């Protein structure tokens, strides 16, 4: 198969990459870029562990053709930490509120939360649940995850 060149932004950086047409974004991130913070929990868009943000929207990287990334702005969990190593406030909230147990769902969960908060600064509990309904977690029962996201809003 021919490799194709695509250009896009990844965590704020301009990228020019040779890719194969059948790759998913998830495969590209984990296997080519070594960005293993984005997890594969199922490969079918049913668990949300691979959630990343493309042009302000949360998507499942496991179902996203790499060829569609052309010209887009991709943010992964690795892109949330600032240049000087400061964690994003959502990451801090997850730590402080006890929203992390085994942690496998955590990066995807945080990306879903970020997409929500970027669009809606003070979401209600229902809106939070709706936004993370596609991110399965088996450890936490979601309660402290929801609490962590709540602290980001006006209810802080």
């Amino acid at each position, binding site marked *: 198969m021919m490799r*194709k060149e695509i250009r896009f932004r990844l965590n704020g950086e301009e990228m020019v990459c040779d890719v194969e*047409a059948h790759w998913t974004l998830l495969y590209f991130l984990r296997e080519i870029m070594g960005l293993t913070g984005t997890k594969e929990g199922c490969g*079918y868009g049913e668990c949300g562990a691979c*959630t990343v943000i493309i042009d302000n929207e949360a*998507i*499942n990287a496991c179902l996203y*053709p790499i060829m*569609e990334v052309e010209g887009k702005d991709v943010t992964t969990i690795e892109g949330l930490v600032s240049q000087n190593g400061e964690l994003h406030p959502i990451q801090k909230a997850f730590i402080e509120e006890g929203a992390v147990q085994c942690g496998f769902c955590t990066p995807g969960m945080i990306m*879903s939360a970020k997409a929500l908060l970027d669009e809606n600064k003070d979401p209600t509990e229902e809106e939070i649940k709706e936004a993370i*309904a596609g991110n399965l977690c088996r450890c936490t029962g979601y309660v402290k995850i929801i609490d962590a996201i709540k602290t980001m809003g006006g209810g802080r």
Partner: protein
Amino acid sequence: MRRFEYHKPETIKEALGLVTSLNNARFIAGGTDILVALRQKKAEIDNLISLRNIGELKGIEYGDGLWIGSGTTHTEILKSRVILEHYTALNDGVKNLGSRQIRNVATIGGNICNAAPSADTACPLLVLDAKVLIAGINGERWVDLDGFFLGPNKTVLDKHELVKGFSLPLFPKNTGSSYIKHTRRAAMDLPILGIAARITMDDGKEGATCREARIAMGVVAPRPIRAYETERFLVGKPLTEDVMEEAGNIAAREATPRDSIRGQAWYRKEMVKVLVGRAIKNAMERMGL
């Protein structure tokens, strides 16, 4: 994952040209169904032709009716005020479809063309009298949505055709619509049963009679279906509890569900009886009655 080539046409014409000339070619819209099928090796495809970059397929327009481009995502539909206010059943259908992540990429065209009996936009579009605009290399044609579905994952689309979009009429003032998705889980689920209703009353007052009714049912047959007999029964009647109950009974006779791991046939039939009435009630509430 099977290896394939990926094509990104920017016009419908280009897309149709590619699908006609390439071997083992299929269109891909949001990809949330087809990429799963590819991964499960349920599809043998050498060329995927993306519809995502075709501007003509996108967008919602409201004027002397509603036009929804097939490439419109569920999230875009969810954000439409016009659809929420005038085509509420469709808002209902999209609201609980998949997850946020899925809705952000999956398109209404994909949901309809995949033609699953459980497709969440199918019943709403059926009761909203949607017409499908199909584009092929030899031109365009219109099909009623009811005539579009043939069976599970089967439609009238020729493999070299694509759906351009859906046209929905304007409805009179005293119209309300709704969709109920009956599931085991509160999110990330397929319906055990889906029931959509649209009701137009002859005037907006209580005690008035039904002028036009549409009832559609999902997962009760090999394809989403209209409950014609139920619709005929409702017309001309005041929508009392008794009438709604009887409508549920009639609809249950029109339903031919099967047992599956997702739900048992008897239960689906029972739910038709219950949910037809509830869907009608929801539709009436939206009318402001």
